[in-house]
């Protein structure tokens, strides 16, 4: 079994290094093919491990080698394959494999094709380290690793120049990449602090040891540790107020958005909360804060998605919103539901993004859905895929999203957090609306693009086939809810609805469904037969607020980035140069000038020197008289 673990873990690394060797050579399709095959190997290894864990219920621990040791501190590269990590491993490798194959087609014309695969596989490796590690520091390696890979991939088209925010809200890929990295770093500091707290109160960073010791720790320690770790999770999972990087990250190539910014990396925060569930379970205040924040972000992001015109950004906002759902579930103690939604979301969101990639490919990188329309004629399969994914996202029965999201909303009701429940229900309606607004504006109606120059066509066949597993899972994943629950609750606390909720479950489902279908119907009415711009609405305050993302990016720019630059300038030019250095120089000049003054003593006349000498002698003698 250990071999399987290492195969699953290192196949992506090998793939990355292999592609890296060719990074500076001209595009070669075989690089992509071999990378995809290695990823597939990793997926099979993960699947086999999953089967093993499923059939034997055993948890596999393995230690590769020691890493850092100093004083009492001791950390190894240790990996654990249990119900949680194996679920994540399977999801990650599956989505990654599909994205790799997809990228062969999508990046077909890019001259940095090989480099792309190197980065992409490196990302998968980091993600695998993240989910498989058996200690917090190992998780942190993956945590930072995915950060760097995401930096590389968002900034993949680094050669694009910076433009103003009005032209492109993310300014440039490299700007967005830096923003993502730095914002993640802010959160990582929180995570580090959490690790420090745990280390000094437990003495180890291994999950088993830490969780076993938790009952002996004081409440303050638990609360601060949980809070610090959650700050880390907020960064990776782009929760408010560290959420702006996620939409800007859409500057990266679309497969990247599918893999990193939808299916895997951003769920790392949720994974952390699920992984550390014993800790969060013992800190109800923090957990409730998580649930509250999650609900707020779900609503907040959905509201911004309502009015956005950018194909990828809409999906990015929906990702944010769904992450909010996951946090809500995890915060309310329904960890397995959060994990279930995480997996289901990974499938349909990746599918959605890849579909968007197809559209972009067909539309020559046009992203504005107001300039599309009528594509269903030319892009049948993409239409179907995106339709399926949107239905899953909207939570329509039989599709995966229904089972997972509905469970979350029920949980909120069950926990008697009615405000959260209400917000989540409304958000479900908004989700349905914006998903279908996007689908209809893209595929339905009449073309709004220049039909003379653009002749859209669907993606390569193999790409479409590669996407099919995701589509199938988006449809059918929900049916395995019971099995999934049975599987993961071996490790995670099980969660049962109370009697009261159980009675109302039919009613609750109908309410949620009502909102969802209402949202779809509204979108259908408004957009199915083409776009009718509503000037009055578009000029309203709320619309402007939403389009500008509540002016939060502006706020950051004006109140953090600019003052920071200004203070830095001032510190350098005013403080460092004019105060600190000037004082040093002033001391030097004092000696220099005093030398210049005393130089006048040097008349060249021996007699004068003798006078000085005698004066000195006299002074010394007098001193001797006076003090001796």
């Amino acid at each position, binding site marked *: 079994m250990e071999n399987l673990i290492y195969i699953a873990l290192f196949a992506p690394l090998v793939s990355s290094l292999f592609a890296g060797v060719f*990074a*500076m050579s001209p595009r070669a399709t075989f690089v992509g093919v071999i990378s995809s095959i290695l990823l597939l190997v990793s997926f099979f290894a993960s699947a086999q491990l999953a089967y093993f864990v499923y059939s034997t219920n055993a948890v596999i621990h393995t230690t590769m*080698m*020691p*890493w*850092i*040791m*100093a*004083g*009492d*501190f*001791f950390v190894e590269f240790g990996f654990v394959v249990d119900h949680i990590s194996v679920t994540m491993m399977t999801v990650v490798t599956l989505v990654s494999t599909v994205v790799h194959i997809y990228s062969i087609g999508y990046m077909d014309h890019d001259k940095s094709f090989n480099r792309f695969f190197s980065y992409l596989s490196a990302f998968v490796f980091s993600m695998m380290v993240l989910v498989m590690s058996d200690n917090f*520091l190992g998780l*942190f*390696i993956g945590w*930072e*690793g995915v950060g*760097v890979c995401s*930096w590389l991939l968002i*900034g993949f088209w*680094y*050669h*694009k*120049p*910076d433009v103003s925010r009005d032209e492109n809200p993310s300014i*440039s890929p*490299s*700007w967005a990449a*830096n923003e993502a*990295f*730095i914002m993640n*770093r*802010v959160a*990582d*500091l929180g995570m*580090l*602090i959490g*690790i*420090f*707290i745990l*280390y*000094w109160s437990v003495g180890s960073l291994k999950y088993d040891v830490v969780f076993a010791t938790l009952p002996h720790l004081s409440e303050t320690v638990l609360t601060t540790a949980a809070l610090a770790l959650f700050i880390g999770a907020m960064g990776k999972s782009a929760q408010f107020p560290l959420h702006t990087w996620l939409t800007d990250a859409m500057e990266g190539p679309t497969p990247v958005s599918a893999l990193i910014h939808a299916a895997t990396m951003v769920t790392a925060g949720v994974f952390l909360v699920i992984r550390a569930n014993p800790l969060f379970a013992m800190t109800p205040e923090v957990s409730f804060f998580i649930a509250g924040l999650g609900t707020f972000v779900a609503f907040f992001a959905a509201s911004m998605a309502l009015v956005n015109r950018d194909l990828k950004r809409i999906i990015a906002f929906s990702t944010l919103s769904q992450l909010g759902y996951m946090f809500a579930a995890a915060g309310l103690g329904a960890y397995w539901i959060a994990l279930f939604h995480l997996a289901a979301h990974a499938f349909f969101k990746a599918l959605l993004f890849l579909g968007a990639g197809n559209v972009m490919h067909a539309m020559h990188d046009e992203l504005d859905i107001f300039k599309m329309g009528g594509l269903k004629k030319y892009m049948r399969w993409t239409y179907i895929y995106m339709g399926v994914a949107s239905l899953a996202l909207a939570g329509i029965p039989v599709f995966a999203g229904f089972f997972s999201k509905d469970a979350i909303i029920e949980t909120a009701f069950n926990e008697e957090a009615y405000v959260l429940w209400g917000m989540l229900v409304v958000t479900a309606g908004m989700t349905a609306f914006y998903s279908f607004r996007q689908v209809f504006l893209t595929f339905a109606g009449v073309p709004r693009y220049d039909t003379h120059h653009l002749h859209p066509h669907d993606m390569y066949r193999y790409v479409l086939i590669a996407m099919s597993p995701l589509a199938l899972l988006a449809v059918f994943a929900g049916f395995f809810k019971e099995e999934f629950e049975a599987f993961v609750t071996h490790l995670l606390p099980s969660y049962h609805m109370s009697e009261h909720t159980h009675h109302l479950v039919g009613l609750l489902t109908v309410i949620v469904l009502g909102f969802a279908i209402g949202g779809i119907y509204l979108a259908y009415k408004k957009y199915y037969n083409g776009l009718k711009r509503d000037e009055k609405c578009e000029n309203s305050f709320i619309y402007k607020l939403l389009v500008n993302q509540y002016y939060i990016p502006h706020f950051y720019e004006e109140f953090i980035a600019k003052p*920071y*630059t200004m*203070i*830095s*300038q001032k*510190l*350098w*030019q005013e*403080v*460092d140069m004019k105060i*600190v*250095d000037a*004082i*040093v120089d002033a001391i*030097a000049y004092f000696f220099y000038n005093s030398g210049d003054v005393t130089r006048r003593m040097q008349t060249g006349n021996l007699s004068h020197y003798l006078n000085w000498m005698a004066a000195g002698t006299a002074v010394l003698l007098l001193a001797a008289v006076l003090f001796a």
Partner: protein
Amino acid sequence: MDNILTLLVFFPAIAGLLGFVIEEKSMRVYGITVTVLEFFLSLWLWGIYDGANAGLQFVEFVPIIPSMGVNYYLGLDGISLFIVLMSTFMTMIGVISLSIKKNLKNMIISLLFLEMTMIGVFVSLDAIIFYLFWELSLVPMFYIIGAWGGPLRIYASIKFFLYTFTGSLVMLVGMLYVAYAYHDLTGVWSFALTDWYSVVFSVDAQMWLFAAFFVGFAIKVPMFPFHTWLPYAHGQAPTIGSVILAAVLLKMGTYGFVRFSLPMFPDAAVIWIEPIAVLSLIMIIYTAMVAYAQKDIKQVIAYSSVSHMGIIMLGIFAMNAEGITGSVFQMIAHGIVSGALFMLVGMIYDRRHTKMMDQFGGLASVMPKFALIFGVMLMSSVGLPLTMGFVGEFLVLIGFYHVSPMITILGGTSIILGAVYMLSLFKKSFFGPVTIEENRTLKDLNANEIWSLLPLVVLVIWLGVYPKPVLQPIDNSVHALLKFMDEKAVNEETKALIHVATKTKEAK
């Protein structure tokens, strides 16, 4: 081999003397040969070093002035071993990558003498010998900056010399006082550090002595507000000068704290934790911000050095094995990473004769290999796990968290601020379109440059993934140091704060 340390110290110097009779054109090969030999010598030293023994090894003791207790007294432990290795390694890499044409012979001779003084500082156990090497190290560096530097080189080199020299003098007074106190106590003169360790000073005396040593070391580190010589020295020095300065010379200061201040004045060190932590914080945050404001790539790296030295200072005063071990490791990591960054800047300077960021942009597409290596070093500099930079920085922060969570949180901002200035540097020079025509034709790294950088890249990743061979000897020696401090401390508070690791090393 009993005299290996003497050999290690004086081999470069003798080779430097012989260098005067070598022809100019074969000087480069000669320099490389000598430094490579020296490096292998130090590798051999590592090979025969007993990692399990925490004490001083390879001790050499020859009386010079017996009546005054001045001895030629060398020795090395886990703390100094790797700094010595790093010095020989960086000198070797520096000489291999040397791109100076003018007066190459003199340059190499200066470097060889510098190497002698650097190793001498790290292996001497006699205060007078230590001081001798300490001061001598200024001279070759003074020449290197003053003779091969930029337009402001005279100002920079004199500032460097006088500033650090002033500090050293104050330190000398402290040393003499300690020797005098030792004489008072025992009736014999001795400048041997091991003898000095046995003196227990009153807390008042410790405070004064600590202050005297502090001035000498802090200027060298350089700690805020004594840091302003550094940007000038770096800005004006030739590439090789900056590499050695950042990699090794700055470490003398922090090494001094570990070697002198901690074991000799444990109580004062504990009392001084707070002021030093605050100064370190200012170093970390303030210089990181100043670095962000710079327009010159080299100045960014120079200020970033100060910022990283702040982390190292923080670790030294963590008073536990995690912090101090991390600190020593970070010294090595910073040496290699900042050395590499300065070399990279030097390479681009050789091509374009400018170091201004606005003169670049889009270099990643013109010079992909350069960008790749720069990227690796940058990531190590901002402390990415699995690179060298992370191990040290993490250990320092985790160590200091035990002392003060608040200061650690503030100090931890270095991982954010470091990313801010480094990434903005990378974005400005490597990303975006190529806007300046001259940059379009820049050549990527040539074989020589790649071969001098590759070992650094390998080291940065190897020691990031598997730091054990380095960490363990350091940790053993640090453990012994802490135990010693704990036993020696006068104040109860000091004993309470010094955290000696409890566990026996199961990791072995």
